[in-house]
């Protein structure tokens, strides 16, 4: 299969070379040769594969990130907020207890400190 392709390419190359021998420059001829070479085709295929694969990878990472993020938002964020509130309340209570537990100090002075 690869052989057939290369012979067809060769024919076309010969044809184009003979048809445009006069009015085409060196640059375009080099371009044609490169475009029709085996390495170029392989590279193109590899590039398109890579692009497709990376697109898929990016999409699935995005989806995973979305799932992880929403799960975090549902399960962990409320927990953090509530734990923080609880800690605040405990702190306040401790503060109050220490204020109440110091009878020698007048309340005005205690509130000032």
């Amino acid at each position: 299969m690869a052989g057939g392709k290369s012979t067809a390419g060769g024919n076309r190359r010969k044809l184009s070379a003979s048809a445009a021998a006069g009015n085409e420059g060196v640059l375009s001829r080099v371009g044609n040769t490169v475009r029709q070479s085996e390495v170029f085709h392989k590279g193109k295929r590899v590039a398109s594969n890579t692009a497709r694969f990376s697109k898929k990878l990016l999409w699935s990472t995005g989806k995973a990130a979305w799932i992880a993020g929403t799960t975090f938002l549902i399960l962990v964020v409320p927990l953090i907020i509530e734990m923080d509130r609880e800690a605040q309340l405990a702190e306040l209570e401790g503060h109050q207890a220490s204020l109440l537990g110091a009878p020698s100090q007048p309340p005005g002075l205690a509130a000032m400190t």
Partner: protein
Amino acid sequence: MGGTISFAAAPPPPIPANAPPPPLQATPTPEESEKPEKPSGEVDWLNLPCPISYDELQREAMMSLKPELFEGLRFDFTKPLSPKFSLSHSVYMGSLEMPSQSPETFKVPTAHYEFGANFLDPKCMLIGRILTDGRMSARVKYDITENVTMKINAQLTNEAHFSQGMFNFDYKGRDSRAQFQFANNAFYGGNYIQSVSPHLALGGEVFWLGHQRKSGLGLAARYNSDKTIMTGQLASTGLVALSYVQRVSEKVSLATDFMYNLANREATSSIGYDYLLRQCRLRGKVDSNGTVAAYLEERLNLGVNFLLSAEIDHWKKDYKFGFGLSVGEF
């Protein structure tokens, strides 16, 4: 952080006014915490604790893993008219999922108002509910003697064949419990559970469905210590259910359960946490079906609770969020 600082800085002035009523610290927790009395030292085999009833074997795991998730708005108001009698009003607006064969979920917007009357007495409990869409339910619990309790559950609907009635007779022995059930559609059942050691209880059940000519057997075991609760249930219908609850601290417990259905070879398991804080109760779980759910009950004031419910099904792309308010508690 800024909130912390401002909150910590603001309180000092109202302290004298705030300090006298201690209920702020001693607010009752939403759920009862019933602990089995533990014999110390030598095991007294003739004085084993009374086990939990067969129906409620997985109660702790269910509490943590199956909160009443809802979608939409709900408002509950309970007004006590006397210490034993109270009326309840509740409004629900949202969408209900309709059971269907297709993988997509159908949601039907619904709204209803529910009126209820409750009579609560240590010996007798009567609860009635009526909905605007015609459903009615009643529950009766009556202690005939100290050891025998009668329970009646009834549900009436205006659709044929959906009304249900169920009678239960519970017998509570010193270290065992037995229950007889009979319901409409010729359902008869009985179960028995016995404490085998101070921590372990074993039980079994038999039931017979007369109309479908089906019968079944079930076995259950429950291990209960003050830190862990393990249960296992096996039914001849092909259902295996295991659950495990670990009390990490007074406020935190973790629960996991596993269910396997032999008939359709489906297994599901879930894991969740249950935080019981002073101002709130927060429950969250993750499911092997890709469902994440959380349920928050926040105590805004004495008798005023704010509810937030969230459930995300990642695979079905089914998102349910609900909020609610419940005013007054019995």
